[in-house]
C-alpha cells in the first residue's frame, strides 16, 4: 500500500523539483588582479544574480587547483591586470573563466551563465558611453578540456552497474532460494548462516569487480579516459562500494520473500533514487534542500564523488577520507541490520 500510494507522490516530487537545468547559488572563487571599479561592478553583478555565491577571494593562481579539489567550488573567475584601464584604452579586456569540468553539464551551464552576465554588463557599459567595447571571456575547462561527456558518464555507469549487479542480483538470488525452498534445506544443514551468506555473496564480489575493471579498461582504451589518481586506491574504493551494495542486497533479501518483491524493492528503492538523487542525471546542487538532504543518504552519491575525484582530479585519500568513511559506515549499518533481520526470521 505504502508503495502504491507513496511512490507516485515521491516520483512526481522528485521529477518536478529535480529536473531542472537552472543553477542556483553555485559556489565560485574570484581572483581580481585589478581591483578597479569595473571588475568590482562585474563581481557585484555576478553575485547579485542569485546564480552565484562567492566562496572565496583568491590572490594566488596556485590556489585555483586546490580550491577545485575541495569539490565545492565549481568556477573560478579571473580579472586581468588593469581591467578598467584596458577596457578604456584598448576597448577590450579579458576575463578568464575556469570551470570544474569533471561534471561537463554543470560546467557548461555555469560557464554560459557567466558569459551571458558578462555580455549583459558589456551592453550596459556601452550604453552610457557610446563606445564599442568587448569583454573577452577566455574559457578553460579544468580536468576535462574537451568536455567529453563520457568522462562524466563513465564513473556513473560504474556506480549504477555495481549497484545493479551487487545489490539487485544478491537480493534476487537469495530471495530465489527462499522462494524455491532450497534456503530452508541450507538452513537445516550444518552450514552456518554466515557461510550461506558468504557463499551467496562471494561470486557477486568477483563479478562486480570484473565489471568495474572492464569499464575502466574500456574507458581508457576506447574513450581515452585516464585514471589520474592512484589505481590501487580506486580499486579499493570500488571494492568498498561493492561490499556496501552487497550488504544492501542482503538486507533487501531478508525483507523480501519472493524474487519479484526483491526485484521491485531493488528497482524502486535503489535504482530510481540512485539515478535521480545521486547527481547521476540532475545536478544535486540545484535541488531543493530537502532532496539534497535525502541524497546524502544515498550511498552512490558519495561513491560518485570519490571515483570522480580519483579518476579526473587525481587526488588521494587525504581529500576523500570523509566520503570513504561515510560509505564504510553505511556498510557496517547495512550488515548489522541484515544480521539482525536474518536472526529474527529464524525465530
Amino acid at each position, binding site marked *: 500500500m505504502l508503495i502504491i500510494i507513496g511512490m507516485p507522490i515521491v516520483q512526481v516530487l522528485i521529477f518536478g523539483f529535480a529536473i531542472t537545468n537552472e543553477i542556483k547559488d553555485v559556489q565560485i572563487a574570484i581572483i581580481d588582479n585589478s581591483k578597479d571599479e569595473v571588475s568590482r561592478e562585474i563581481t557585484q553583478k555576478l553575485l547579485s544574480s542569485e546564480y552565484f555565491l562567492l566562496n572565496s577571494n583568491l590572490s594566488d593562481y596556485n590556489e585555483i587547483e586546490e580550491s577545485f579539489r575541495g569539490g565545492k567550488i565549481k568556477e573560478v573567475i579571473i580579472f586581468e591586470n588593469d581591467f578598467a584601464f584596458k577596457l578604456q584604452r584598448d576597448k577590450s579586456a579579458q576575463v578568464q573563466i575556469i570551470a570544474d569540468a569533471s561534471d561537463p553539464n554543470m560546467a557548461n551551464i555555469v560557464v554560459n551563465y557567466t558569459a551571458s552576465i558578462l555580455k549583459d554588463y558589456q551592453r550596459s557599459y556601452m550604453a552610457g558611453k557610446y563606445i564599442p567595447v568587448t569583454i573577452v571571456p577566455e574559457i578553460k575547462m579544468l580536468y576535462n578540456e574537451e568536455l567529453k561527456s563520457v568522462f562524466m558518464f563513465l564513473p556513473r555507469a560504474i556506480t549504477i552497474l555495481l549497484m545493479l549487479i551487487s545489490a539487485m542480483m544478491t537480493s534476487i538470488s537469495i530471495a530465489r532460494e527462499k522462494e*524455491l525452498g532450497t534456503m530452508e534445506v541450507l538452513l537445516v544443514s550444518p552450514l552456518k548462516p554466515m557461510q550461506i551468506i558468504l557463499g551467496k555473496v562471494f561470486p557477486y564480489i568477483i563479478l562486480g569487480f570484473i565489471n568495474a575493471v572492464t569499464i575502466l579498461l574500456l574507458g581508457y582504451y576506447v574513450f581515452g579516459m585516464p585514471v589520474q589518481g592512484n589505481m590501487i586506491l580506486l580499486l579499493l574504493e570500488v571494492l568498498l562500494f561493492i561490499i556496501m551494495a552487497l550488504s544492501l542486497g542482503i538486507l533487501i533479501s531478508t525483507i523480501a520473500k519472493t524474487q519479484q518483491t526483491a526485484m521491485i524493492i531493488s528497482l524502486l528503492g535503489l535504482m530510481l533514487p540512485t539515478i535521480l538523487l545521486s547527481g547521476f542525471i540532475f545536478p544535486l546542487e540545484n535541488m531543493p534542500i530537502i532532496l539534497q538532504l535525502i541524497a546524502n543518504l544515498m550511498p552512490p552519491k558519495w561513491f560518485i564523488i570519490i571515483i570522480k575525484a580519483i579518476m579526473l582530479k587525481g587526488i588521494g585519500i587525504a581529500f576523500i577520507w570523509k566520503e570513504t568513511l561515510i560509505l564504510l559506515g553505511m556498510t557496517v549499518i547495512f550488515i548489522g541490520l541484515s544480521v539482525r533481520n536474518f536472526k529474527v526470521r*529464524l525465530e
Partner: protein
Amino acid sequence: MDNKNNIIEVENLVKKFGRFVANDSLTFEVRKGEIFGFLGANGAGKTTTIRILCGLSSPTSGKISVAGFDVYKETEKIKKHIGYMSQKFSLYEDLTVKENIEFYAGIYGLSRNEIRQRSGKLIKKLGLEEEKDMVIGSLPQGWKQKLAFSIAIIHDPDIVFLDEPTGGVDPITRRQFWDMIYEASHNGITVFVTTHYMDEAEYCERVSIMAEGKIVALDTPAGLKKTFNASSVDEVFLKLAR
C-alpha cells in the same frame, strides 16, 4: 522419559506466534528406527513442529531433545544428525542431477571420495544413469521427489524429517516413495513424516493426529482403529476432526 530408545523427546512444547498458539503443549516421543506419522489437517501445526525439531524455528517453551541434543543449545549438533525434505521441492532446478547430489553431499561435509562413491551408487539405484547430466527442471515430478528424498538421507542421518513428501505425486510414485522410506527405516534411519493422505498413515508404525495445535491421538494404526472403533485411520481422523 530419558529412555535410550527414544530419539526424539518432546515435553510440553508450546509455540506461539503473537497471540496465535500454533503448538499447544505437545508431548510425545519418537522411538529409534520407527516410522512416525504426524497427521493433521492443513494448519493443524504440523509444519511448525517439524521446523522446531529441525532448528529452523525456536519454541516458545517446552523441553525438547532431538538425537540426544537440546534444541535450545545444541542446534548445530542436531543439524549434523538430521535430514530434511520440505513441502516445497528443494533441489536446484537449474543444476543437473549429479550436481545436486554432489552439492548437498558437500554441504554435509562428506569427503570428495565419499561424494563420488555415494552419488554413483545413488544414481545407479534410482536408475538415473542416462539422466545424470540433465538439469533437474526437466525431470518428471515423481523422479524429482525420489531424488530429493535420497539426497535428504545421503549423509546417513539418524532421523529424516519429511514434510508432506508426497504432495502432488501420482499413486504409483507414492507407493515407490514409501518403499524407499521403508528401506531407509530398515537401514536404521528414524523417519518422521507428516502427511494428510490417510492411507499413508497405515504404512507408519505409530501415528499421532493433530488438530488445532494439539495432539488428540497417538498410537499404532491398529490401536487407533481399535480405540475409535473404525475400519481405517481415515475414519479415525474424521471422527476426531468432528
